[in-house]
């Protein structure tokens, strides 16, 4: 199926159209429970995301990169992963974390500024958030190479934005993935802006998916606001990777409805008309219409989902706000496996400073 959509010709996989049509030949056979689960995750993502924005405005949370508009590409792709697969996220991946079972408390705690948040719970193969753009892509390739070496039939997914595709590490990682035929799935959320830089100023390529061809990889352009298309594309790429077929580059075409981060003002570089056009393509609305057509959505379901999401979010915020701040030791003991004599001296100097400051 992947090869039926040629990115070099600009062909894009879409299952749910913006006007409500469904490509029955490509429609995944997901159970009603799964469909409703996906919807619930998308709604929770949005509610938690908006909550974080509100907390930031109230001064209760630091700089934060909102996911508004990314719910379909995040949830749709992450939903296909198994526990044995690895995920290398970037910094705008709330729906991905939620879908994989990363504690929502840790999400809030991270943006509140506590490293403890990235102590990933055992059993979750999620890598830490990587801030330097695109530099985690070689890590994903190395991890995939290790799985191959260990003869584990798992895949490694890396998420990144359109800006990352201009970085050298994107090129180097995809090149390594091609040469070593690693089980990677590279998922680019093309939300059309890297802060203020539009994707047309980022690359002269027709699209991002076509770049795969240069590395001997399969590329696939997907409607990133169509959660079913994201799920189908990711599942297929994962199966290919797990069975030794090599890596895939998926470009999820979407739109960042919010600012780059809470420190950004997107009105400086794009028009309200443009944003309004994309609001009409809202991924949650589109999926809701699909569920409705299958008699899987009604007002009662919606209010239950909303309520559960609110409760989960409020609980997570309360836990994050109640988490203790780090002690001086916490800042030192993870520099190396053990404290060096010099670090011991510096830690005791810091403790003295704290005592003096408190006097």
């Amino acid at each position: 199926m992947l090869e039926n959509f040629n990115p070099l010709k600009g062909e894009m996989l879409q299952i749910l159209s913006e006007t409500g049509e469904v490509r029955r030949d490509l429609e995944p056979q997901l159970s009603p429970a799964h469909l409703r689960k996906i919807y619930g995750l998308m709604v929770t993502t949005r509610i938690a995301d908006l909550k974080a924005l509100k907390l930031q405005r109230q001064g209760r949370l630091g700089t934060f990169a909102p996911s508004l508009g990314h719910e379909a590409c995040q949830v749709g792709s992450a939903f296909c992963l198994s526990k044995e697969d690895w995920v290398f996220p970037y910094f705008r991946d709330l729906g991905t974390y939620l879908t994989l079972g990363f504690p929502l408390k840790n999400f809030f705690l991270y943006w509140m500024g506590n490293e403890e948040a990235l102590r990933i719970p055992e059993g979750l193969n999620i890598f830490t958030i990587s801030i330097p753009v695109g530099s985690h892509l070689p890590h994903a390739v190395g991890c995939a190479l290790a799985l191959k070496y260990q003869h584990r039939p798992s895949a490694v997914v890396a998420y990144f934005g359109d800006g990352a595709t201009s970085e050298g590490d994107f090129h180097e990682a995809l090149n390594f993935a091609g040469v070593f035929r690693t089980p990677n799935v590279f998922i680019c959320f093309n939300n059309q802006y890297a802060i203020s830089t539009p994707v047309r100023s980022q690359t002269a390529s027709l699209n991002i998916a076509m770049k795969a061809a240069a590395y001997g990889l399969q590329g696939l352009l997907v409607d990133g606001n169509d959660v079913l298309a994201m799920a189908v594309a990711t599942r297929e790429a994962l199966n290919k990777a797990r069975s030794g077929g090599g890596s895939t580059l998926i470009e999820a075409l979407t739109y960042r409805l919010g600012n780059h981060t809470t420190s950004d003002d997107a009105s400086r570089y794009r028009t309200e008309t443009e944003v309004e056009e994309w609001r009409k393509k809202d991924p949650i609305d589109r999926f809701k219409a699909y569920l409705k057509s299958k008699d899987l959505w009604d007002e009662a379901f919606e209010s239950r989902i909303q309520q559960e999401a609110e409760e989960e979010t409020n609980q997570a915020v309360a836990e994050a706000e109640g988490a203790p701040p780090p002690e001086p030791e916490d800042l030192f003991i993870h520099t190396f496996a053990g404290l060096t004599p010099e670090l011991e001296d510096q830690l005791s100097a810091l403790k003295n400073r704290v005592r003096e400051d408190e006097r």
Partner: protein
Amino acid sequence: MMINMVQALNQAMRQEMERDDRVIILGEDVGVDGGVFRLTEGLLEQFGRERVIDTPLAESAIIGTSIGLAVAGLRPVAEIQFMGFIYLAMNQIISHAARLRNRSRGRYTVPLVVRTPYGAGIRALEHHSESTEALFCHIPGLKVVVPSTPADAKGLLIASIRDEDPVIFLEPTKLYRAGRQEVPEDPYEIPLGKAKITREGEDLTIVAWGAMMPIVERAAEQVEKEGVFPEVIDLRTLAPMDRETILSSVARTGRLLIVHEAPKTCGLGAEIAAHVSEKAIFSLEAPILRVTAPDITVPLAKGEDYYYPNPGLVVRAIKKIMEQ
């Protein structure tokens, strides 16, 4: 067995790969070619392409991929062909390898060794004579090791491979084939963070490492004939530094000379001098001196002798300190 540093390092990698199948090697030309200096010769034949990996020419991805391998449970030994090319991987080393343990609060660690030929004195092309060890010593989370003899090279590399944290392992190119030494056949570790007193003396302390060691030794032999007895410390691990050995030596001798081939400003000598000043200034009977390269770009072959410290320069510095 009498072997040189290249053979000692090769033996260290071979024995660690035999002992632990998580140890793998990757880099440019490390497989079929056995490395441009033949450090990895014979390893591809013995361990196969899965464990001795010829990579595309991309330093950032060599280190970045190694980080991923390490996180997934392997113990990569990555070769950067020359230290002058390691800068392409600086973001991976500084922003990720050094920080992942801390960023993940210990969940993800990077037991990675980055090996690279280091230092001048070999009449090389531009970028093939770098000694920018101080850049790495400045970064929390990195260990930096420089051997100066075949036997140390073997034990230090084995310890680095077994270490749980990233190690920048700098191999003085000038010493690769500079001489043979009796090196024990069985694997052994020389603990990281421990300096070695290579010559005992009571008149002054000289701290050096890598290819400066034979130069310092020659200077020491010369001044001993004139009745001055230096204590010579081979630092071996630059980060974390064995501050204790330096301080206790200076407490005895009251004089300190630091010799490094790197440029002077913000070189590691500055940190050693500052530390001794903070901790032991009242033991000092003379100002601390440094013999270093000047703060200039490493010259090409024809100008290299102006750059590189030699025994005469070290002897004159020793005499200057002893005059005080």
